């Protein structure tokens, strides 16, 4: 096997040194009846060229030449090539969690910079080193709020990503955290009235998303005011990180639970992504996940270490703030590099392009279909309602190598023939125009069908 650095002679010499006759002697602790006497039924050993061919084949079956209008928690942005050039350096790629700080200063300083930039962007005091993803991060944030407030229930917006809601549901059930869901208003924003009425004395937090699942930007301050008045914390989930370039961050929130995939992480069919939590200084000891902190060496030189480990499972076991151990470090490094590439000015310009493309698309769609939630600002997604089932329109778009917006029937049946469309800086005007053209055609044919029907009556 080509990964194994031993010759038969090496193995023999080692067995001899150990003082056993054969490798089987070393497996004698395993009761004979459990030793596998046959080959595993997995594919035979393949040449590297065969492996590459196999996956190229899978790639071809996976729509490698389509343009897409999908967003909904996973965004297609341009990834500067320096990201992969750097994260593939063996020193980053093949190192472990930086437990031995003196031999891992590269990873540690990078985490420290990541924490700084996430804090800066989210408007929080500090951020952790990463969580699995936006959905689990949001669930952990709710559990954190429960620990901080000593209260036990949570309120969540229905405009929070439906899969995030499902994950939260899974986590909350066995933590004994009752969840209440608050509907969205006609503006697409959370229904503030309903929200106010939902709080009880036991409400630890309200969890919203902004821009929310529909792309609508919430009025975070207003929500914060309500939550704080009721003694609850506000958690804001951010699924589209690029929005932070042009959308005011949720400074009034207590915890920000972010999915940073948009910042340089490949779509990768859903993962690995990069969750991260940011919060206020005062809550740091209830924060789950790893934290890098600055310190000094014996000679007074600045250096970085993992710190406040007493929050974590390897020290506190069942009393830890979370069971998380392995996180998404290398993905966080991608995010880090992306943020560094775009920086203070670039992130704003990037977000502006997203805004402009989406505004244009929503405008064009609006001429043919019904674009919902016009009453509040949006970032790079919008919901369009068509006369025809969007799945049907999408299958025609597929013929043009275009993946249309996400049909919402599954998640929001009340919205009827609605779909969630997303445009980023990579969505060209011509592809928007093509998609709009096909939607317009659909509307026309439905209309003419209706007319025919009417005539027939």
């Amino acid at each position, binding site marked *: 096997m080509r990964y194994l650095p031993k010759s038969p002679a090496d193995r023999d010499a080692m067995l001899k040194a150990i003082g056993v006759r054969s490798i089987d002697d070393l497996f004698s602790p395993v009761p004979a009846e459990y030793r596998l006497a046959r080959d595993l039924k997995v594919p035979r050993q393949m040449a590297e060229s065969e492996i590459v061919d196999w996956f190229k084949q899978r790639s071809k079956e996976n729509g490698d030449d389509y343009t897409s209008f999908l967003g909904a928690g996973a965004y297609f942005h341009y990834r500067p090539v320096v990201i992969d050039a750097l994260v593939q350096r063996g020193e980053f790629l093949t190192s472990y969690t930086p437990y031995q700080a003196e031999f891992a200063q590269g990873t540690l300083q990078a985490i420290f910079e990541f924490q700084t930039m996430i804090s800066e962007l989210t408007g929080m005091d500090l951020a952790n080193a990463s969580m699995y993803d936006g959905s689990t991060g949001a669930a952990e944030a709710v559990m954190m709020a429960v620990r901080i407030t000593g209260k036990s229930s949570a309120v969540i917006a229905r405009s929070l990503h439906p899969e995030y809601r499902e*994950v939260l549901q899974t986590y909350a059930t066995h933590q004994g955290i009752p969840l209440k869901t608050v509907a969205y208003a006609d503006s697409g924003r959370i229904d503030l009235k309903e929200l106010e009425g939902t709080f009880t004395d036991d409400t630890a937090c309200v969890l919203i998303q902004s821009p929310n699942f529909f792309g609508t930007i919430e009025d975070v301050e207003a929500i914060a005011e309500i939550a704080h008045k009721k003694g609850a914390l506000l958690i804001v989930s951010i699924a589209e990180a690029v929005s932070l370039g042009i959308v005011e961050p949720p400074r009034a929130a207590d915890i920000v639970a972010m999915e940073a995939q948009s910042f340089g992480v490949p779509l990768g069919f859903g993962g690995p992504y990069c969750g991260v939590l940011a919060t206020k200084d005062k809550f740091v000891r209830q924060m789950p996940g790893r934290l890098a902190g600055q310190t000094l060496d014996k000679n007074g030189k600045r250096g970085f270490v993992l710190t406040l480990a007493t929050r974590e499972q390897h020290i506190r076991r069942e009393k830890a703030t979370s069971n998380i151990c392995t996180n998404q470090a290398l993905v966080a490094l991608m995010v880090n590099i992306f943020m560094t590439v775009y920086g203070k000015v670039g992130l704003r310009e990037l977000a502006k392009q997203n805004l402009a493309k989406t505004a244009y698309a929503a405008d064009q769609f609006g001429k043919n279909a019904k674009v919902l939630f016009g009453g509040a600002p949006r970032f790079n997604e919008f919901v369009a309602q068509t006369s025809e089932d969007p799945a049907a329109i999408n299958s025609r778009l597929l013929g043009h190598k275009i993946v249309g917006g996400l049909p919402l029937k599954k998640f929001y049946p009340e919205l009827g023939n609605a779909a969630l469309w997303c445009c980023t800086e990579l969505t060209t005007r011509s592809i928007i125009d093509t998609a709009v053209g096909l939607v317009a055609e659909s509307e026309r044919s439905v209309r003419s069908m209706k007319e025919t029907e009417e005539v027939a009556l």
Partner: protein
Amino acid sequence: MKHMTRKATRHINQNEGLIFEKSSPGKAAWKLPPLDVPEVDTAKLLGKSERKDLGHMPEVSEIEIIRHFTRLSTWNYAIDLGMYPLGSCTMKYNPRVNESVSRIEGLANGHPYQPAKISQGAMRIMKTLSDCLIEITGMDAITLQPAAGAHGELTGLLMVRAFHESKGNARKKILIPDSAHGTNPATAATVGYAVENLKSNDRGMVDVAALAAQMNEDIAALMVTNPNTLGVFEQEIHKIADLMHEKGGLLYMDGANMNALVGKVRPGDFGVDVMHLNLHKTFSTPHGGGGPGSGPVAIKKILEPFLPTPVVVTKSDGTMAFDYNRPQSVGRVRAFYGNFGMFIRALAYIFANGPDGLRQTTEDAVLNANYIRKGLEGVYDLPYETPSMHEVVFSDKIQSKKGVKTMDLAKRLIDYGFHPYTTAFPLIVPGALMIEPTESEPKEELDLFIEAMKSMAEEVEEDPQFVLDAPHNTRISRLDETLAARKPVLRWTPEKV
């Protein structure tokens, strides 16, 4: 620099400040294409939601970014540089072809919600990997959704709970041996179970008699690691399983140490009901400085109804689809389908190995650990003499007489050019040196390691203070962890002028 082995030498290395310290207004590493739609009035569109300023975000050029991260990287140790014997972490070679295939365009750019018709490639990867892992573990079904080992534990215990609930009683407790990893009890708590400690016997294994006494109908499951964290195979594993099953309990196996078993022994064959795997350990996906991982959970038939949604299924026409209609499911444990990029890598690893390679890998991993054990016996204290599988745990008992603890030895080992072993785990060994070489080490590297460890032991005898002052050869000396925790500085802030 006192003793110096043949392993490493000092060499000039670049300093580098924080990226914020390099920032200056007007520098840029980005460039956007010209906008092909009308410009928008952001104030008009966003109103008070418009962000005006991005604070202290850096402004630097591309060359500075390349240098920044290249320089930083040279301060890290890595598998690519040498042996990384962190016990329980399985720091094996991360094949480059894995990285290459995971970046093929249609896989790297696949959107999780793209239509099934153009997702067949991704689903086929998930299905093929699932089938392989089921065969390797000897289990009946699997979910790939969990993002890491601890997340796998959570998913597994959720299924345990759902199973018991389906029988009308969720039960109250999870039994966990005192040698277990911290995630085990932490996970049990997350799923709403109390943790009951199970003492190890003097051979470092589950005390079967004690287990028989402790087991009752309040206990939902036992979480056992096999080989356990001492690197010892639980020889009475089937008895343990029987004891659990007799009282209606389930046997959970933490599969962190599967690198000792693949192709040689299958947990499904020795009575395990539910287990997680760490693709980032056993199946060679890179650790990347702490993640990402992937923690699939393999289960027996009885738990299948409770799998998280969705599950990849093959339809009658041979195409694949996600099945969301699973009424008894524990629900989702994360958005989308898991760390898909890691599935690709793990599957590429399985393909590269085949059945013979996987078996040989396991044999070499066990061979390496035993070679180290033999080489260091007598030099370091071996708290448990039970035979070792893929890792060996010594203690600092001998050296601590001179005031030198496992962490001090670890720092000195860095001077020799090796990443240290795992310290302070498992808890049943005070001052543990937990060494897992994996199969990826040539004899030459093992010999250098043994030489370094022996040399260090001599240094402890000759000049313990020198070892206590280590590391001496790194660009930075020992860092003050207490200071970091006492006055946490968790982000950069500009110096006040």
